[in-house]
């Protein structure tokens, strides 16, 4: 390991994680070379807008997308306790095509369930970016709308839509599972109407979103888009 980044004047560099710093290693043939983990280990492509190709077919596909909502099992705040009941006999969200998935790659919906600390937001954004489009964001509770009772906290965000495109807000502190189910139905309507194009919006206004995110997440430690 070498100390290449002695000039920590740059804000980015100040928070650059140890494992992301450039390092020199010796190959098996004895030749030294430098590794830049951010470039070598991560893809730094930016997202693109993927527009629907055929309106008629798209309508049918959107119906399918609406009826098959795979939710990423990611709880951010106190609201995450409201999600498990959805799967119980009482609420049984599976009736509506809502299923839980363990990996963002396969999920199409991410539920932001309550207050978001800056630290959690970083993880949320990573997971969101790892989901494949079209993807939808369902935000729960006052905290995601305007900060709720944590509006003056130094560490929780005040409004989610500055950081990622939100499709449906479910108000309340906390909203109950019924409200969440209603939120799902609202989301379905939006999808079927072809208005849930959050992923494209994110790609379009990517720089703006990223600037907002980076304003509060100072040690992003990733290429801009986390594939």
């Amino acid at each position: 390991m070498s100390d290449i980044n002695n000039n920590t004047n740059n804000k980015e560099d100040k928070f650059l994680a140890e494992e992301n710093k450039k390092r020199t290693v010796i190959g098996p043939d004895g030749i030294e070379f430098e590794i830049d983990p951010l470039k070598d280990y991560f893809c730094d492509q930016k997202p693109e807008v993927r527009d629907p190709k055929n309106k008629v077919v798209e309508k049918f596909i959107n119906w399918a997308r609406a009826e098959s909502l795979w939710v990423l099992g990611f709880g951010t705040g106190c609201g995450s306790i409201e999600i498990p009941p959805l799967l119980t006999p009482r609420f049984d969200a599976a009736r509506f095509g809502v299923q839980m998935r363990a990996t963002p790659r396969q999920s199409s919906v991410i539920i932001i369930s309550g207050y978001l600390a800056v630290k959690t937001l970083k993880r949320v954004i990573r997971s969101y970016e790892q989901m494949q489009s079209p993807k939808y964001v369902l935000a729960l509770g006052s905290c995601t709308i305007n900060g709720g009772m944590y509006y003056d906290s130094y560490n929780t965000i005040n409004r989610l839509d500055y950081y990622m495109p939100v499709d449906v807000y479910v108000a309340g502190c906390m909203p109950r599972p019924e409200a969440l189910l209603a939120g799902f139905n609202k989301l379905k309507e939006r999808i079927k109407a072809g208005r849930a194009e959050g992923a494209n919006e994110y790609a379009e206004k990517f720089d703006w979103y990223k600037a907002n995110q980076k304003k509060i997440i100072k040690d992003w430690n990733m290429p801009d888009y986390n594939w």
Partner: protein
Amino acid sequence: MDNIILKLLFTLLGLFIVLNWGLLMSAIMQKIVARVAGRHGIPFYQPWIDLIKLYTKRTAITHGIMFYLGPVFRLGGGVGMFLFIPLIYGSEYFTNFSWSGDLILILYFQFFGMLGMALGAGEGGHPNSVIGISRGLAQFTTVEVPMTLAVISIAVQYQTLSITEIVAAQQGGILNWTLFTNPLATAAAMLSLLGAFRHAPFNLVKAPNEIPIGPPTEYHSSFLGVLRTNNAILHVIEAVLFMNLFFGGATNWFELILKSFLIYFWSVFVGVVFPRFRIEQSVAWFLKVPLVIGILAIIIFI
């Protein structure tokens, strides 16, 4: 020439039926599981919707060429097994390409998909994928032991390895089924089947919570669609294999659907009732009772 084209068309038709039956069957099973839990469960058409959605995702990522080919191998394994297995006994067309190989071909062809999938998931680079694969392979080794014993037992019994001939030998009444003529082999194979279908208690391979669904952690979009297509086909085909070997085969589609449903239901039934094994437990389990039954199944022929 016409014959071959006709055969091809019927094969595609068979594949279509098997695929849809597989999807429907998985929906029904999920509904049964839901009802056991006191829920309504998914709509019966949910698997089709999921498939459509997966195939029409707008983006995808790939980790490399092997990652890309992994699902193709996997589906190739399923479709290949379909091609090499006779579906309907006595039908000229729904025996597919089973003339090109026997039971051994089927037993080894299932590795085709597994291996390809394992390599694809391996290139994904995700440690959880590999944990899942290593567990799956480890479990599979011993799952195959009672199965091998059962296969040898029935091969000795019928003095053939050709599936068509084994089915032929079971025709003429329910008492001619291997189930009744060789109950030990059937028992060993049906216990092995639990492991082959990977339902609880043998579902540590996928373990959704600990190692997010195991091997396909990184798979998504149409990759996952391909994998799900394969699952649907494979479940039916494996059930059809057991049906042919132990339950008299099928002379028409209705019989096939009924029998494959019941065979698949057996594993779901056990899965609903029992909790999950750890990997060393499940590996060892197949070397206990099922192994003894399998050995007995051979001893009676010595």
